[in-house]
């Protein structure tokens, strides 16, 4: 394969960044969806997203996409670590601990991460109905916010059971970064003198 391949770390970072941007940015999500399906970019997509050689239908996403979002992903990770000890928690080997011990630590993670998310984005359910209730999707329902599963056939309107309410993020804002700040330090080592 002629296209450059990314390292695992870069892919993880990209996946993180893309995840949040997909949640926050409907146009971007649509672009990713079409990239995934191998379709050409949407006609009104920004020029840099347009495939450079229309003859090749499958092109890698342009490298420019990697820059800022990586910073944002690392920044979010640092934020979750700072407020909720997220990295400490998932990197610790918890196999030897009881559920009660893990539960106690999970409170730190839950409280802190919830606070961090609360402060930096507005998360709300895509569908407001209670889960497991019957819902009807109108003919022009927004495909990007709702996934139909199971017996998918025919034409909308569809009626089915709401299995998951979904989440949608809005008003996402992360702290601004100063020039020269090293975002790869998720948490500094601490030496007490």
């Amino acid at each position: 394969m002629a296209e450059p391949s990314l390292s695992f770390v870069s892919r993880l970072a990209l996946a993180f960044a893309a995840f949040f941007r997909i949640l926050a940015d409907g146009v971007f999500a649509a672009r990713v969806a079409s990239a995934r399906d191998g379709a050409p970019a949407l006609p009104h997509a920004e020029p840099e997203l347009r495939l450079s050689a229309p003859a090749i239908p499958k092109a890698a996403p342009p490298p420019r996409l990697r820059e800022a979002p990586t910073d944002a992903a690392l920044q979010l990770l640092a934020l979750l670590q700072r407020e909720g000890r997220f990295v400490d928690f998932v990197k610790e080997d918890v196999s030897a601990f009881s559920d009660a011990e893990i539960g106690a630590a999970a409170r730190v993670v839950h409280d802190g991460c919830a606070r961090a998310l609360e402060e930096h984005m507005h998360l709300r359910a895509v569908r407001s109905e209670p889960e497991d209730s019957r819902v009807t999707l109108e003919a022009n329902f927004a495909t990007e916010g709702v996934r139909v599963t199971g017996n998918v056939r025919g034409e909308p309107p569809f009626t089915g059971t709401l299995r998951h309410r979904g989440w949608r993020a809005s008003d996402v804002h992360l702290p601004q970064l100063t020039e020269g700040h090293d975002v790869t330090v998720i948490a500094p080592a601490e030496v007490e003198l």
Partner: protein
Amino acid sequence: MSEPADASSSHVVGIDLGTTHCAISWVDADLSEGDAIAGRDLAIPQLVAPGQIDARPLLPSFLYLPHPSELTPADRALPWAAPASEGAATESPFIVGELARALGGKTPSRLVASSKSWLCHGGIDRRGAVLPADAPPEEPRISPLDAAVALLAHVRDAWDRAHPETPLAAQDVTLTVPASFDPAARELTAEAAARAGLARVRLLEEPQAALYAWIARSDGAWRREVNVGDVILVIDVGGGTSDFSLIAVRESEGALTLERVAVGEHILLGGDNMDLALAHGVRQKLEADGRTLDTWQLVALAHGCRAAKEQLLTEGGPASVPVVVPSRGSRLVASSLRTELTRDEVDALVLEGFFPAVPASARPAQRARVGLRQLGLPYAQDAAVTRHLAAFLAKQAEATGAAGGLARPTAVLFNGGVFKSARLRARVLAVLGDWLTALGAPAPRELPGADLDLAVARGAAYHAYTRRGAGVRIRGGTARAYYVGVESAMPAVPGMAPPISALCVAPFGMEEGASAALLDEELGLVVGEPVRFRFFGSSTRRDDVVGTVLERWREGELDELAELEAELPTAGRTAGEIVAVRLQATVTEVGVLELDAVPREGTERWKLSLDVRHDAG
């Protein structure tokens, strides 16, 4: 009355320079009319982590003086570049705000906290580099005044970045101070504002600001919520201080007017004390199990206790809330300490410890200071807010003409984050109700509160708006009468200091811009030598006029303030010459008391210093 409004100043701004947090709000005067106030809060950009800047509604009033090897320049850069004037955060050695607080949790000896309480501490040199109080001797320190300048400069830079066309220096700004601040602390606050480049500042008492916020928020409905004859008690329990004021609702030419009739004493007692009390309680439980906490963990525990307290003090809240002290190291699951805080514990420590149901005759306990005391803040010795409240209402009873030995508020306005808890508000109202119904007076009602964290800044902005002649103004003037101490003329008695009598130089209730009458008595000042006078204030003597002489006074009637100092320049005179002067008090437009020495002949005036440098020991 109203000042000329120039085109550059369509915004009027309020700044809450709080003990634990600062906030800034503003009113667009062009878009406001009558009771419809176009008020906004400004989020203040600040370092929230090394190299990360976020705009938050509150700026924690903390300064941190980092060691050169602690942070890189990139880690501490701020979004405003060139230092605009003195005290600009970019040229200053400190970190301000959220990051300062976070760093200080782990390195307390470099943290300047509660600098405002130090600014009101007459026992120290407030212009001297004394903070952080427990910094190692070779490390830099700053003065309480410098700290206020740094906080205001940060707020100014935040404003100027958001409003480059209308810099803060050109706006009408109202800056809040505790009602209990003494004249020297007010003067220092005004000086800090001037050094931060805020040229058009007025000072406002915080409890008044809270009431202004309530008025501004009501869109005019406040006129239906209070009636002529109401006395509003403002109870402001902030992070570090408690402040009480009484504001009377009166009628003048058919319209409701508000007059601040009494303010309380400076009480260093607030929400942080409550969180710390809980944290110490929980620590004892953990230590009983053989587990120990370091300072950082205690800070983290106090944080956890604050959140748990708010849950447990909700009506119908849970019986207990788990509190987890996170491990210092990366092994979170292995080393975190889990415990819980119960409703009973919070009730015992906070409700009964800080807001006990006491009779109206209760008074705060005063322990004698024992032996050598470290030079520290004069924290309240009695933690019970209700006892301080009882003392305040009793002290102001006579002055406000209330029978039964207790001032009789008819309505209560709460302010400060502590009162987010409905149970605490209910407890205070119940205690007040008991006191008043015992006297045959009705129990006071609660005025539905404004935002407890931002009310002071919003009210200050509204006050700045009323300076344009719009809206409702609370009248009041100075909250104390002021006296200088003069030695009584009597034969010397060996071993006894000559008794002092107090000579009134400024009556109660002087409005901004007013001058008191010239004192008839002449004082002899020695040219070229500083002369000191004892200085007193009284929040209860309403009827003394300039020249009133008090030979004796009751316990608590006069409070001694920091000494006054007069030094006449030698220019044009002989050193050692004695010049007869008379004193005159003025309250400046800013709201600062000034005392001038005026010689019998000539047109000279010399300002007396209210903030005398304190001698060692």
